[in-house]
């Protein structure tokens, strides 16, 4: 079992790993079918140290914040290490947010350094939101063309200090990262994750899914996401494994990467996993009847043999062609970010490809429970990881209640939001807002949400407050966005959607003109953030003394309506 007890910080653990595994392959980066570079741990260090030195020369020091907005690539990890080496706090932001949203979070985080890619910078630099984030003093841009207008930024490749940087020690309780779990429209939720959070999570996760030299992880989920940050950066690099980055996520190149780079682990969101299932099923269905019969028989044998635990060697021999398509070395597909349907999980397990499904949230330091595969249980999200205390609060007769967690991996709190932090972490217990129950064998089963939000199959957390701004000044009496499941709870984690609740002006109709206006505004949102229907309520919204909508009271009033009839199409 991995022992990180002697380390105080992410930077310290990684610093030692770079020396310990100096000659092992650390990073492989490919663009389509072309391998762009391959770095050993020694070469990784040689790239990171000049950057760290240049940051220090520019007076970046302990506790200062630096943000990364990049797609998955080597320079993401090199930059992150340089920030940790210099004692900085990393603010990883989603490159898929709009430029204004990114500036808003850059301002909220008080980042003084921004590291980004040229195509992203082109959009960011031209965005009006830039003016408000004057805290960002140093901007480093990767891969800018030779004659590019950098608009005040500097080239990452040329930002190199001479001589060795000084390693800056941090305490376990110090903030390592500020990770935004939401808050681009409403209240910004910047989770302050400590070094201890990551060190403990890494030990817990690798106890079930170990990394070591020779293991190769294919990094597809965005690295700013808690899962990829752990299993696509800190986990593998602490243990001497290699991370493979693809600069394009076209399915055909992702498929090619498995056999080409002999991938051991990959993390996917449920949407991609389902797509993979669909593709495989189509191929199986196209087999001639005789071959299909043999194939089905082999799957049945594999299923029987792996009932109590995965037997990779046997599965790889029985279903050779399937496993060869995945490179022959794939041990586990890690799935996360959203709820995965049991039949999809079972499909892969029956083929001898275990899918490590689990449950977690950024605030808890990634994973809370993970399927330990002994035996595989598609109908649950697994058992609590070592070091996690999980309690179900106020259970109903069927055992379903709110899932709460206490662990060394739980965040320190939300940045600049003491009240929100106090509501979320009570006496050390993180209130997840998710509903669940434990079965007789200690496996957690999720059963809906208590909180007003949705999670898409692509793993995107959407909070109604974040999309409401787009409907501001809509010509109606009042409006409010809700997760439909929050109003009409159902014991399910799939098919979640947002609805717009309207209180029309006296005499106003929900007619074509209003519908067009709502659609036009809705289309300004990224596709996965859009509302899916409208609910009309002919009464004033309940409000607080400061005129804020009392969402929980409003939801109770709406709950008496029949959801099927109440949700009108757009």
């Amino acid at each position, binding site marked *: 079992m991995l022992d990180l007890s002697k380390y105080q910080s992410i930077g310290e653990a990684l610093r030692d790993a770079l020396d310990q595994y100096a000659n092992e392959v650390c990073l492989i980066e490919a663009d389509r079918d072309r391998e762009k570079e391959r770095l050993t741990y020694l070469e990784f260090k040689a790239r990171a140290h000049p950057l760290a030195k240049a940051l220090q020369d520019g007076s970046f020091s302990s506790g200062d914040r630096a943000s990364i907005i990049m*797609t998955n690539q080597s320079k993401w990890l090199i930059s992150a290490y340089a920030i940790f080496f210099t004692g900085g706090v990393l603010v990883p932001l989603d490159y*898929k947010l709009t430029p204004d949203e990114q500036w808003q979070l850059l301002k909220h985080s008080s980042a003084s350094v921004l590291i980004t890619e040229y*195509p992203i910078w082109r959009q960011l630099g031209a965005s009006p939101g830039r003016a408000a984030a004057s805290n960002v003093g140093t901007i480093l841009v990767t891969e800018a063309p030779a004659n590019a207008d950098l608009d005040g930024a500097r080239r990452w490749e040329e930002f190199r200090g001479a001589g060795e940087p000084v390693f800056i020690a941090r305490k376990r309780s110090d903030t390592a990262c500020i990770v935004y779990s939401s808050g681009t429209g409403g209240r910004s939720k910047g989770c302050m994750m400590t070094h201890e959070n990551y060190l403990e999570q890494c030990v817990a996760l690798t106890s079930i899914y170990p990394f070591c030299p020779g293991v190769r992880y294919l990094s597809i989920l965005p690295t700013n996401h808690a899962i990829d940050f752990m299993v696509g950066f800190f986990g593998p690099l602490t243990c001497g494994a290699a991370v493979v980055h693809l600069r394009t996520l076209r*399915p055909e190149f992702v498929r090619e990467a498995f056999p080409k780079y002999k991938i051991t682990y990959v993390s996917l969101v449920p*949407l*991609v996993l389902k*797509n993979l299932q669909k593709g495989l099923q189509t191929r199986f269905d196209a087999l001639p009847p005789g071959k299909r019969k043999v194939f089905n028989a082999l799957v049945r044998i594999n299923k029987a043999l792996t009932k109590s635990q995965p037997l990779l060697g046997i599965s790889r021999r029985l279903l050779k062609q399937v496993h060869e398509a995945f490179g022959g070395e794939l041990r586990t597909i890690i799935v996360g970010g959203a709820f995965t349907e049991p039949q999809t999980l079972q499909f892969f397990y029956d083929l001898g490809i275990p899918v490590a499904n689990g449950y977690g949230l950024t605030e808890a330091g990634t994973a809370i429970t993970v399927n330990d595969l002994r035996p595989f249980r598609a109908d649950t999200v697994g058992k609590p990881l070592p070091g996690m205390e999980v309690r179900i609060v106020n259970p109903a007769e069927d055992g379903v209640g709110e899932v709460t967690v206490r662990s060394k991996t739980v965040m320190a709190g939300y940045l600049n939001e003491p009240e929100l932090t106090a509501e979320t972490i009570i006496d050390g217990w993180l209130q997840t807002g998710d509903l669940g129950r434990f079965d007789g064998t200690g496996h957690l089963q999720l059963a809906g949400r208590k909180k007003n939000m949705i999670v898409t199959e692509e793993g995107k957390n959407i909070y109604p407050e974040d999309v409401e701004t787009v409907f501001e000044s809509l010509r109606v009496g009042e409006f409010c966005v809700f997760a439909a499941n929050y109003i009409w709870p159902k014991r399910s984690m799939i098919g979640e959607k947002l609805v717009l609740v309207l209180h029309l002006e006296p005499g106003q109709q929900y007619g074509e003109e209003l519908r067009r206006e709502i659609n036009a505004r809705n289309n300004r949102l990224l596709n996965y953030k*859009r509302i899916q229907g409208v609910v009309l309520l002919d009464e004033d919204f309940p409000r607080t003394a400061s005129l804020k909508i009392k969402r929980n009271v409003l939801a109770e009033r709406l709950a008496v309506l029949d959801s099927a009839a109440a949700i009108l199409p757009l």
Partner: protein
Amino acid sequence: MRTLEQTTQEVLDLAAKHFQLPAGSLAPGDDFFKKLGIDSLQTLEMLSRLENHFGIELPDYEVQGVSDFKTLAERIQSRL
């Protein structure tokens, strides 16, 4: 050299074919996520088909945030 109008029309025709829709059923301003009811993965598949047709490479960052055919055609046109 194609004009932007020609490129746009070819994009619309190919997308309709890819998703088995009647020719002429898509318009330049259509939001393809909404009109076709597709997800981001299906969009990537459509892009691969467009790349093969036009003989170009469209890096993922070029199409990041693009959701209508007109803008997509403009990005393709700039690489022809």
